[in-house]
């Protein structure tokens, strides 16, 4: 074959049909670029102060919008706590701005690695010898080296990228010190600011403050977000405010699953599943809807959306029996003749005095992919929030992983809060993700402080990409599971979007007896880590399994809404070796079955002509029998709770039952509405509005807004 033939083949092969670009993507790209362009123009050095001010003023609300998602823009959702959070948001934005400034000024795109005795370095780039005046100056500006941190210059491209993303390439220090190693004190002097930043701050302060970022400490403490107060009063330098907007899209991974189907009782009378208190799906869906896009169907897990909300089920009285089931049977709002069976469980809530001590290790992903405003900065803020939920005697250690894993903070009592905060704030993102290695280190740290009477838990915060080392999910699972048996639990906090690997995160948390939560906004962090800190931190029951046996005399067919990824085999129920979901203090779990009574005309499945139906006499008033198995946290043998569900459990579609139904309906409509008939977003909104009741945190109001957004997004979507 001669060269021309090859070239011709190549042309034919490469020059195939190219679909025309998606107009929405095109619009978005151009709009973002224009925004970046305008920001760029506003920062031209000779531009007047007026322009800079304007830019600063635009930058902060932009930030807040990002931090709060759409919430902050809408009336009614801010009622209870957001104003305070807003201030702390401003404050953290300032912290972050400084952090970003640091990154830009001291060479964007350095890879953070940490040198520790005994910790192997596994970086993609080689460490390079220290050199360059600028670096020496920087090194002088910082002092004592507690753990030793090296910033390895990555290639120039990252710098270019960062300047494109954040605007203002001029502010990036020149390339002369590329390839140098700078040392920064991580634990000791987090407050020290390189000279470049000081200059900017001084200049901005002279220009007159436009935004006050300090608030009284007390107010901030009350808001549960202990962050303001550290921030230099004055203004945010315009040029260190990143431009929100850059997002990776399209590589989020979810496990594909099929919705539970309507099952005839005569064929399979028993349904078994594991409890699930995760809420990640709801946050992810919210994030997509707030961007005006319908979520991919596999991202919608009905049970996680339902369980996002707290329901006022009857509380158990004793710790030994950690929960009591509540049952309600109502008419289905989307199918005449069918009914919904709500099974609700509320976990026992631990009294403050009974709280065990916590030994926590934060394992934070600082890889390059976390270098986005909704990732590492939000991680830091979230962890700081969690700190506020802890007691002074609890201990916290921080490990990070990127190209290599390293300890940033040895186990430190929470009362030394400043030390912890300093360590946290000194982190920046860069490099690939040696997650597995980080996980090992985190467990080692937890083991070093292991206390059998305490809660020993690793909090993993990541965008989900483990790409170096032990990346086989099975191996990771096994590892996490072994550690769980040794008494160290794992919770996973997911961040960001673009390459979020939902399935891996879920699996890890499930194997680690922890929750998997997706933190999309600061207020979500508040919900998970402060308002519901007890549930997140303290398990009250583990391996919680539910089994429902339907009575063929009264029920013709049924289906469980959601819990597809939590289904168990019938025989797993009594097998204590089979792992299942865990429930934390105060958690609520809700499962909803839709079923068709025998007498109803709405049956989807006809009776079998040949198979006999076995009906026992004397149970004509029971729909089903509910069994729940669980283990107390420190026991290995399961306990059983059971109760029949009878005609007397019939109830009206109102209050919490109604709201949970609205959420269930919403999830199903989002997934395509296979069983929900004409029930649409308007019905969801109507039902939710009628039944939202007392809504102290505004979550339910937000839900209604999400349903509205879904309606708009659905209308825009070509079908």
């Amino acid at each position, binding site marked *: *074959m001669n*060269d021309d033939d*090859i*070239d011709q*083949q*190549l*042309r*034919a*092969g*490469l*020059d*195939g*049909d*190219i*679909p*025309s*670009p*998606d107009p929405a*993507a*095109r619009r*978005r*790209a*151009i709009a*973002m*670029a*224009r925004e*970046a*362009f*305008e*920001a*760029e*123009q506003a920062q*031209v050095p000779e531009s007047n102060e007026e322009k800079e001010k304007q830019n600063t003023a635009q930058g902060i609300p932009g930030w807040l919008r990002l931090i709060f998602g759409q919430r902050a823009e809408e009336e009614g959702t801010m009622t209870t706590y957001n104003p305070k959070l807003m201030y702390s948001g401003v404050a953290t934005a300032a912290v972050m701005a400084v952090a970003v400034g640091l990154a830009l000024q001291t060479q964007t795109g350095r890879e953070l690695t940490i040198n520790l005795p005994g910790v192997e370095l596994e970086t993609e780039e080689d460490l390079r010898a220290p050199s360059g005046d600028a670096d020496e100056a920087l090194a002088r500006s910082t002092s004592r080296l507690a753990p030793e941190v090296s910033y390895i210059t990555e290639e120039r*491209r990252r710098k*270019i*990228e960062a*300047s*494109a*993303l954040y*605007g*203002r*390439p001029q502010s990036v220090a020149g390339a002369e010190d590329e390839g140098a190693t700078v040392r920064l004190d991580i634990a000791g002097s987090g407050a020290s600011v390189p000279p470049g930043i000081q200059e900017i701050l001084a200049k901005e302060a002279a220009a007159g403050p436009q935004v006050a970022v300090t608030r009284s400490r007390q107010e901030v403490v009350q808001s549960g977000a202990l962050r303001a107060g550290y921030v230099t009063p004055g203004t945010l330098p315009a040029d260190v405010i990143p431009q929100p907007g*850059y997002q*990776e*899209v*399209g*590589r989020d991974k979810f496990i594909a699953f099929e919705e539970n189907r309507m099952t005839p009782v005569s064929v399979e009378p028993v349904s078994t599943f594991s409890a699930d208190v995760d809420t990640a799906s709801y946050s992810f869906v919210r994030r997509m809807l707030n961007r005006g896009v319908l979520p991919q169907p596999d991202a919608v897990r009905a049970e996680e959306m339902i369980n996002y909300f707290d329901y006022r089920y009857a509380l158990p009285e004793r710790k030994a029996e950690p929960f009591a089931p509540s049952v309600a049977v109502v008419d289905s709002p989307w199918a005449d003749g069918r009914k919904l069976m709500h099974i609700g469980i509320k976990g026992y809530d631990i009294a403050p005095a009974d709280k065990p001590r916590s030994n926590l290790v934060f394992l934070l992903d600082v890889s*390059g*992919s976390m270098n986005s405003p909704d990732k590492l900065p939000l991680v830091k803020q979230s962890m700081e929030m969690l700190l506020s939920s802890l007691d002074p005697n609890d201990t916290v250690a921080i490990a990070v992983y990127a190209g290599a894993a390293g300890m940033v903070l040895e186990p430190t009592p929470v009362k030394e809060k400043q030390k912890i905060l300093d360590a946290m704030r000194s982190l920046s993102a860069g490099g*690939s993700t040696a997650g597995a290695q980080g996980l090992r280190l985190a467990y080692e740290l937890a083991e070093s402080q292991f206390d059998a009477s305490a809660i020993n838990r690793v909090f993993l915060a990541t965008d989900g*990409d483990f*790409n170096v080392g032990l990346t086989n999910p099975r191996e990771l699972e096994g590892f996490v599971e072994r550690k769980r048996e040794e008494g160290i639990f794992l919770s996973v906090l997911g961040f960001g979007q673009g*390459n979020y690997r939902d399935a891996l995160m879920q699996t890890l948390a499930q194997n680690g007896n922890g929750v998997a939560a997706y933190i999309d906004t600061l207020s979500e962090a508040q919900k998970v880590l402060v308002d519901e800190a007890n549930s997140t931190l303290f398990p009250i029951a583990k391996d919680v399994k539910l089994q429902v046996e339907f009575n063929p005399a009264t029920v013709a067919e049924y289906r469980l809404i959601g819990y597809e990824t939590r289904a168990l085999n019938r025989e797993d129920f009594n097998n204590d070796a089979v792992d299942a979901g865990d429930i934390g203090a105060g958690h609520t779990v809700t499962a909803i079955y839709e079923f068709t009574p025998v007498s109803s005309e709405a049956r989807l499945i006809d009776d079998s002509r040949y198979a006999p139906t076995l009906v026992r006499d004397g149970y004509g008033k029971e729909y089903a029998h509910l069994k729940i198995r669980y283990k107390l946290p420190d026991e290995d043998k399961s306990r059983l709770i059971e109760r029949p569900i009878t005609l007397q459990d019939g109830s009206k579609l109102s209050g919490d039952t109604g709201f949970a139904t609205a959420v269930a309906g919403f999830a199903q409509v989002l997934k395509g509405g296979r069983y929900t008939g004409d029930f649409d977003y308007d019905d969801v909104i109507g039902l939710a509005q009628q039944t939202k009741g007392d809504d102290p945190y505004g979550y339910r109001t937000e839900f209604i807004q999400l349903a509205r957004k879904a309606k708009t997004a659905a209308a825009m979507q070509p079908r």
Partner: protein
Amino acid sequence: MTDDDALIRAAQSGDADAFEALLEAHYDTLYRFAYKWSGNPADAEDITQQACIKLAGALSSYRFESAFTTWLYRVVVNCAKDWARAQGRHVGEALEPALEQSGGESANVEQRAFLRQLLERLEELPEGIRETLLLVHAEGLTHGEAAAVLEVKESTVSWRLHEFRKRYRLALDGGGIEL
């Protein structure tokens, strides 16, 4: 071209509308290249978006020394390379959707899939071959133009193409893509 020049000058002096018009005019070119590079629309959108954002900061450095399209190609090639580097860890995964996307009815589907696969492997080859191939064979640039985009010597472009043909031939003869 002269329209472009006027727009570029306006944009360089801070006119956001001109900048937007410029992007409107060239988005499709950027997208086309990104699509060929990545083999699927989602990634192509990603790359193009980054290229657009990058242009916001970089346009002021355009000095009219080369044709604007040459300069644009340079920007998008760099974005694509950055993107590939960031995605390096996903190479294996990226392959499958690319194959699906190349679907269609014509006989060259198979060939395209084969090429795509080959291109994936090319990342292990000396740097620069992939973009050189795309510029010359897919975008129809001359060796000289491609050299200008990539800021290399023309002979380097020729060498790269030669190098690729060599391996391509080997791969065909071997019946597989053992590079």
